[in-house]
Each structure stands twice: as C-alpha cells, then as structure tokens.
C-alpha cells in the first residue's frame, strides 16, 4: 500500500463565469517513507492538489487515498493522520509559540511531551522564543513553528505546501536537512516548491504545470531523460549573446541560467561554426562548454514542448 495514491483527479473552478481547470486528470503514487516533491511554477495546481489530499476540498472527478484511506469517505480518519502546513502561515499570530504548539497538540489529543522527540530538532531552535507571539517571529522561525505544529501528532503523511517560499537561502537549506531527518522517523513527506534547485533534494519528483503532470521520476532519472547535448555559453555581452543566439536557425532553445546561457542546438549543428559567427559579431571572451543537464533544464525543455503540443 502506498502512502498516497492519486487516480485521475480533476478539479475545475468557476471563475468569472468561465471554467478554469486547476487539475487535469492527475495520477501518481507516493511510496511509504518517501520524500516526494511536487515541482512547478505558481498557479500549476500544487495547492489545489494538496487541499484535495488533506480533505479540505473535493475533486470533481477521480479518487485519491492517503495512508490507505479514501479522501472523501474516510476524511475524519485522515485528519487524524496527516500533517498539513499550508503555504500561507496559518497559526494564531496572537498566541505565543508555546501556546500554538500545545493548542494543536491538544486538538490532536496528544501532548508536547509525548511527541517531543519528533519535533525536538526543530523546536529546539525556536524554544528560546517560546513566549514570543507567533506573529512576531521571523519568516524562517515561523516555518519551523508551523512544521512543529504539523508534526506534533506524529502524522504518517506530512504535506508541506511551499514551505521554503519567502525563506532565506540558509534557512531553506536547514529546512531541507530537517525534512531528511524526519524521513528517518518513517514519515512520508509530500512537499511542493516552485524552486527547481530543491528538486534534487527529493527522492522522487513530479513536474507539474497548468494542472498536468509532465513527468514523474527520481531527479537523476529526469536528468537522464534529457537526451540532447546542452551547451553552456558566455561572452562579455551576455544580453547581446542571447539575442544573437536566438536569432540563429540552428539554435533550438537558449535561456539565461545564472552567469551563463544554456543552449540546445538542433541535431547536427556545428558548434564551432556558431562560435566563429559570434566572434565575427564582436563577442569577446566567448566560452562554450558541453555540460550535464540539471533538473531545471529538463523542466524548461518539458515546458516548451508541452506548450507547443497544447497550442
């Protein structure tokens, strides 16, 4: 039995008299004890999917189960077993850290002491602020408190909706380390994020866009599916370089990536010839290197191909 099973889930919203398909026939499984990532841009349908799985919303069609329980018929039981951390900070800002935690512990019929071992590593970092109002905490602290509250009843499946959005780079890194530790406590974690660099930290990821799942695999597996050679290019005038590259017929795609441009050429292109052309156009310090694709490259590739298919 998988921790989460999603079968042909669709969800449609009525917005300004027209239907918006938030989820289109989504299916996937999350194995027990897995750290599963839902990666996709804003508006891809991640939150809607989470709300369906946490029994806050009903799907229009399809069915899903969490921990072997149906999200429609067994919603009461599911609510006892899952932990949910919404994307928006949803704890009581006018209650203190300690009060929030004991409030949620009591709602789940447990106490802080009983499950302290679960949250110890996280809570210890905010414990010295335990009398501070939750609203007065910094963003990273709020996340840690929210995670503690979602964990306090020892859920078997933990849903984290964009837990690292709006959190600084150091706290993000820490947060993912915490998730890794939680995995050892036999908690299945489903996490969504718009940051593709976080995809590599998951056991498996689903790339989701416009309510459709583009691909599900391990991060490695997804990277391996990128079959074309990927070039990393740079020159002294990066902006002009992008314009020039996109102007060439041989270039299939080119987009900026940090300090370089990632370029895919059509099959059989002579890259050396392209480089010569660029030098003629007054690009200096030109560099071009064949690199291994990362997950973001794969996602960009998938996004452009599916966009072409659907239009």
């Amino acid at each position, binding site marked *: 039995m998988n921790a989460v099973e999603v079968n042909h889930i669709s969800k449609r919203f009525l917005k300004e008299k027209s239907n918006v398909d938030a989820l289109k026939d989504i299916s996937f499984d999350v194995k027990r004890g897995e750290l599963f990532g839902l990666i996709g841009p804003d508006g891809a349908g991640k939150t809607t999917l989470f709300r369906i799985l946490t029994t806050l919303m009903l799907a229009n069609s399809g069915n899903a189960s969490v921990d072997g329980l149906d999200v429609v018929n067994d*919603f009461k039981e599911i609510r006892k077993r899952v932990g949910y951390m919404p994307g928006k900070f949803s704890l009581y800002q006018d*209650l203190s850290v300690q009060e929030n935690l004991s409030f949620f512990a009591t709602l*789940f019929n447990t106490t802080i002491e009983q499950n302290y071992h679960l949250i110890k590593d996280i809570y210890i970092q905010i414990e010295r602020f335990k009398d501070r109002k939750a609203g007065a905490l910094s963003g990273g602290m709020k996340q840690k408190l929210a995670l503690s509250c979602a964990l306090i009843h020892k859920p078997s499946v933990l849903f984290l909706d964009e837990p690292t959005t709006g959190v600084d780079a150091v706290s993000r890194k820490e947060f993912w380390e915490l998730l890794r530790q939680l995995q050892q406590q036999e908690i299945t974690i489903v996490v969504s994020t718009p940051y593709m660099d976080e995809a590599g930290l998951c056991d498996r990821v689903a790339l989701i866009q416009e309510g459709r799942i583009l691909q599900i695999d391990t991060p490695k597996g997804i990277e391996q599916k990128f079959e074309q050679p990927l070039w990393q290019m740079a020159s002294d005038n990066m902006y002009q370089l992008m314009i020039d590259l996109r102007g060439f017929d041989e270039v299939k795609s080119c987009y900026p990536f940090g300090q370089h441009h990632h370029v895919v050429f059509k099959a059989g292109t002579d890259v050396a010839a392209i480089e010569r052309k660029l030098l003629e156009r007054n690009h200096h310090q030109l560099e071009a290197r064949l690199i291994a694709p990362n997950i973001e490259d794969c996602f960009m590739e998938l996004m452009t191909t599916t966009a072409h298919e659907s239009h």
Partner: protein
Amino acid sequence: MRSLLILLEKEFRQVFRNSAILRMIFMMPAVQLLVMPLAADYEVKNVKIVVVDYDHSPYSRKLVNKITSTAYFTLVDYTDSYNKALTLVEKDQADLVLQIPSAFEKQIVREDKSTLFLAINAINGTKANLGSAYLRSIIADFNQEIRLDWVQFPRMNPQPVIAISSINWFNPLMNYRFFMVPGILVILVTLVGAFLSALNIVKEKEVGTIEQINVTPIRKYQFILGKLIPFWVLGLVILSIGLLLSRLVYGILPAGSFLTIYIYAAIYLLAVLGLGLLVSTFANTQQQAMLLSFFMMIVFILLGGLYTSIDSMPEWAQWFTKINPVAYFIEVMRMVVLKGSTLHDIRFHILATFGFAVILNGLAVWNYRKRS
C-alpha cells in the same frame, strides 16, 4: 470535551490579549449609556421663537413675557416686521413666528376676541408639532387669564365641563431615561453578540487559521461552540455592566427581577450569536462581515422600537418587527424594567426568541461547510 475546552481557552486568551476588543467591551457600554440617554431626548426645549409685535400694548407684552418665562421657548428676536422674522426662519435661526396684530388689545377689550398668527418651521417635524402645541396651550392659558380680568364667571359653569386628569403608569414622572436606557442596553448586547462573533469567525478565515483547524480532527459543532460560548459570556458581562451603570448613574432598578432579564438575555444571545454566525458564513473578510452586520444592525435598530414606537409604524413595518429579535428584547427590557413583568408575561417573547435562535443557528450550520 477536551478539544472544546482548549478551544475555549484559546478564544478567551485571544480576546483578553486584544486590547481593542477589551476596550470596546468596557468602554462601549459606558460611553453609550452615559451619553446617549442624555442626548436622545424627545422633550423639545429651546424652541426658538420670533415675535412680530404690531401692537406694542401691555397685553402683547404680557403674552410675550408668558411665553418666554417657560423653559421651552427662547426669544430670538422681538421685531415689528414679519419679513424680518421670516428671514430668521430661513436662516434656521428661528423655529416659530408669532405675529401679534395691531390693535390686539383693543380688539380683545372691545370685541371680546382677537386673532394671533403662528408660522412654524416644519423642517424638523417633531419640533414643529410640539413647539406649536406648547405655544397653543400657553396662549389658551393667557386667554383664560385676561378674561378673568374682564368677565366675572358665574359660580357654576353654564356648560358642563369634563375635566381630564391623567396618571402615567409605570413611569409616573415620564422620565425619558427610564425608557431609553433599557433599550440602549439591548443594542449593546446585540452588538457584542452579532458583531464581535461574526468578526471573530471571519478573522479565522481571513488570516487562514481556519485552514489549519480544518485539517485537525475537530468536529464542526466543537468549533462553533468554541466560538459561540465566549461571546455568549461576554454578552452577559456587557449586560451586567450596563445594568450596574444604569443603576449607579440613572438610578434605574428593574421593577421585575434580574433573573427574568438574564434568562431572557441568555436565550436572546443564542439568537444574535446565530445571526453573527450566519453573517460569518457569507463573509470572507472582516470588512465584508463588518458592512453586512452594520447594515443589519441599522435596520434592526430603526425598526426595533428604540426611537420610534412600533405601534405608530405602518403595517408592513409592524410585520417586520415580528421577525426582528432586537424589537423583542427591547420590549422585554421595558416590560421587566418598568412594568415588572414576570417570565409568565414574556413567555411568548421567549418562545419567539428561542425560535429565532433555532432558525438562525440552523441556517448558519447548514451554510457553514467545513468542506468545500
């Protein structure tokens, strides 16, 4: 049960931590009860009068003296031009013009009759009505007096006279405050019950905390009870503060028993809390909840018999007051405070209010969907 207790504990903590709500709970009754009854007064005083005197006789002066010696009238101008007087009315500096014709005294003495002219600024209908009525009675009095100077009435009146003397039951001195204060107390209790509870629940939606609550095993009824009980208690606290203030400041001691008031208020609060709950199921932001409650409160108060008597409303409005819980409580308060009514006397009010409580809460629960 444990979940409900922790919800209540949390709710009270939040209320006591919110200084704005606390201030509102204690300041609102104080200010409203101290200021409103003093300002909201039906007795018309200081009616501004202009006298246009074309006669300038001892009689005309006697009449003017008589008018200005009462507390009801303030003499704004004493002139001999009607146009000038009318200008004052137009500028809203005068409410009444009394014109005394030339040869006023002469006519009375010689012909035994004379005519006075009254012009009334009717923009403020109440003031116009009452002002002219006062003035008429003063003139009638004056008429009586001067006639006594001239005519010797026979010992027995030639015509049979029916003298009317009245007694004011339940409020012998016609103390206006005895009538207003209980009504204002009702408004206060209603505000806390309907307004604050609606705002509180909507806040959970607006801030998003309801999302986190909804994924816990808390049951619907527990959440709702956790919201209603604190405001039920607060409503009774406000009522107590209000009753205490009206005792201390206005010396109002209910003729009936406090127990009757509290029993009714306890049921009444269930109804208005249901109303607040219903509002909260429609509104998504505190702003919406505020506007919606505000609109309903205005209608309830204006058609609740606080300022205007329900009996003198048009029939459709009277029917509306039948479904207005505020009207019931105002009536009950006045019945118990002034008349000393017992539970038995207000049994139909209790029944109707209980009906509202069931219907409003039922609608709210039906409309509150934990799952969308």
